[in-house]
């Protein structure tokens, strides 16, 4: 049920390399912080920068979110979900 109510926000940050990709991701994480904390959204970042698949999960983890990285055909899908535990 909760899963159903969860809204997925997509951010295509392909083309950006790490610091910028990270900052972009951080900015979105900061912006959606209330919803994330409430557990109503999850953010999905599309990136083609390998560094970002390390830096974004690192930072998001430090913030207490659950991060999942999926390898798609030509990019990576970094999914940041609220920690519902």
């Amino acid at each position, binding site marked *: 049920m909760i899963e159903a109510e969860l809204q997925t926000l997509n951010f295509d940050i392909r083309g950006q390399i790490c610091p910028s990709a990270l900052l972009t991701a951080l900015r979105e*994480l900061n912006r959606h912080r209330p919803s994330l904390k409430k557990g109503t959204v999850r953010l999905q970042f599309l990136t083609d920068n390998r560094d970002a698949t390390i830096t974004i999960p690192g*930072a998001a983890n*430090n913030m207490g979110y659950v991060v999942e990285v999926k390898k798609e055909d030509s990019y990576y899908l970094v999914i940041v979900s609220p920690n519902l535990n």
Partner: protein
Amino acid sequence: MSVSKAHIPSSSGTEELLAQIRRLEQEKQEILKKERSVTRYLREKIDQLLVVMGTLPLKPEELDDDTLVSLDPVGIIADSFVQVLEHLKETNEELTLAHDEVQAIFDSAGAAILVIDSQMNLQAYNLSSRDFFFPEQNDMVGRNLEEFLCPETKDECFLDKIVATKWMVEQNEFRHQGRFFHVIGTPILDRNGEISQIILVYTDITNRKKTEQSLLDAKARLHAIFNSVQAGIFLLDAKSHRIVEANEAACKLVGMTPQEIINTECHQLFCAAEKGQCPITDLGQTLDNSERLLFRKDGSTLQVLKTATTISLDGRELVLESFIDISDRKKAESALQESEQKYRSLYNAMKEGVALNRLVYDAAGKPYDYVILDANPALEEILDRPSDHILGSHASTIFGHHPVCLEIFAEVVNSGEPKAFETTIDSLGKVFHISSFSPSPGTFAAVFDDITERKRAEDEVQRLAYFDILTNLPNRALLLDRLEQALAQSTRHGEQVGILFLDIDQFKGINDTLGHSMGDDLLKIIAERLSSCIRKSDTVARVGGDEFVIILNYMANEQDASTTAEKILKVLAAPIYLNGQEIFSTASIGIAIYPADGGDCDTLLKNADTAMYQAKDSGRNTYQFYTSDMNAQALERMLLQNDLRRALDRGEFSLHYQAQINAQNGQLIGMEALLRWTHPTLGAIPPSKFIPFAEETGMILPIGRWVLETACRQNKVWQEMGLPPLRVAVNLSGRQFKIGNLAQMVAEVLQQSQLAAEFLELELTESILMESAEDTVRLLRDLKKMGVQLAIDDFGTGYSSLNYLKHFPIDRLKIDRSFVRDILKDPDDAAIAEAVIVLAHSLKIKVLAEGVETKEQLDFLLARRCDEMQGYYFSHPLCVDDFTALLQGHRQQGDVCLFQFKTPHSVKHH
């Protein structure tokens, strides 16, 4: 920042302007320089923050300064930090909670958990460790482990092992203050791989150890029991039936070592014939309890009681077999059976009836009957009923209305004490001696001994105790009783009682001559005659062989007694015919009168007895009243008896000799030796007074021998004196005849005295001849062979038939003086004397007449051709000296006829 150029100043102004421009330019440069510095600082700090965030520094080409400012990375990072910090805070809170949780678990763990550093200093511990290792103490953190928890043996410290291996080490048994622990030490290594901490977990296994120990103890105990029980025990594998374990007793019973026995199939030892029929594994029994034979190693067998059951041990199905040697018990059983058999046969064969009974009680608990549970054949016979009519029957139906002896039997059951008693069972008409005892509560056994006959016999004995069997007259006991009563009664009535003591004259002779049977018949007849002479109120009792006592009650005077005595004598005088013989019996009676002659039974009887002797002395067939001087005579008799015993030793006996004459020519042909006793105080005592005592006491034997020896010796002396040889006649007593060695004794005496046998004559009485004719004939022949002469003394007084005489080698008959005495007055006596002479002559036996005192007697006998004579007419008995003188005179006178011989002594004997 944009620079404005709207105001241009003058030269001066220009200058000023220029200066201004320069200044501005300078300012611009300053500002640019500042701006660069700010940007650089900004980048620097952003990079620093990014690094902190865990990402790469910004690359200038990736983000130009303007974008940098517009992007506001600082803001983003700052916001992100807020989130990171917030998350950190949450995480810290969670960690704190987790720590508390861990501590709680830590403390609640049963095991003691210690955390030490590499220096063994305590960093943390839980509650259990405090309880185990340092109770009541706090602030142990920082203390060195060695101070409070060290292995009891240092060299085994397992911490050294941990330090050395840097690996988890386990110690199974760590002892501390009597407790046992299992310890696991786990090192925690730092980044450099060095030990930073060691976590020690002590699990208390004391209880487990105890349990283990008690299990070991129990096992040892079980093992000890296993081997110490008398019963043999095997454990078998249920499938293979092979023995997996055997105790010592089992080995001993089988006779095999444990090594031999293990793996043996049980069928080889037990139930050999039943392989495949094991009650437990094949027949589905859970328990087998049976007697078996145990086949021992040495081939012998043993009877055992075997118990087998299955047990599960360590998941393995086993059969537990135990067995005990019951051969002894079997023996005992068979012995018991034998004994039972023996007693059963005794029970069945015994003549006493035996019954086992159970009492029957009423509602109030009072026994009212009993049921016969068992009875032996003897009881069936006693009750005259078959056993099926007895067993289970109530006593009341068998014995009649009231069960026999119910009260006594109830008492036996009640008290448990056996009882024996006699009772008459009327319904059976029998008397029983019953022994009863109670073998178990409520029951009793009774043994019935039929004593009906015995009782009858006892009654008879009782009767016999008071009556004489032969004559049926009262005996001495009853006499005394009656006399007692008579005395008491007469005292009350002032009357007299007469006691008549009667003795049959010469009964001994009658008995000896005619035999005891006829003697008894005679006594019966006499008893009847006596009874006929008295009143009903009087008593006749037989008190001895031929002695009777008559009690005469209610006598008015002594005359009554003499009247009765005379009547008795008269009645007895009538001839008695027995077995075709005519017998004359007389009696002597002594009379004592109560109260004159004594105040009690004993005295009266004694005095009557004394009077009776007096009657005998005065010639028999008469009666005498007791007189007090008779007592003196009785006393004399008693004294004589005593003195007689010593008379021989004291030399008080002597022999007198009386001449025997040839009737035809008056020549002296012999002499009869006659015994004389000269009592030291009483003087000469006639043989008639002491010979009966000598006969009674047996003194007659030594006295008789003395007489024979003395007579033979004296005769020899006379012969040696040159006097004419004569025969000497010696009287023999019946007792001498009976001792059996008479012939030998005579031969000895003749030998000693050197007297030729022809000069000895032995005189016997008729009764001796008649007593045991066969023996006597043999003895007489022996004596005759020796050459001794034999004469029969006192002939005619006994009952011998003359016919007998021809069987005996007799030389001479001596006619008794009693016939000779009245030979001229009494035609009977004369006839007897004449007949004897004629008969003797026909048998070629000489006849000697005794007691010839007158010329008339001599003539009468001469006329009847009597051969020889003896008597006062010729010579009195003379002492040795006088007789010697007679012989010498005879010799000097040559053929002097003694018909005219005068005796030297006129002393009369007898």
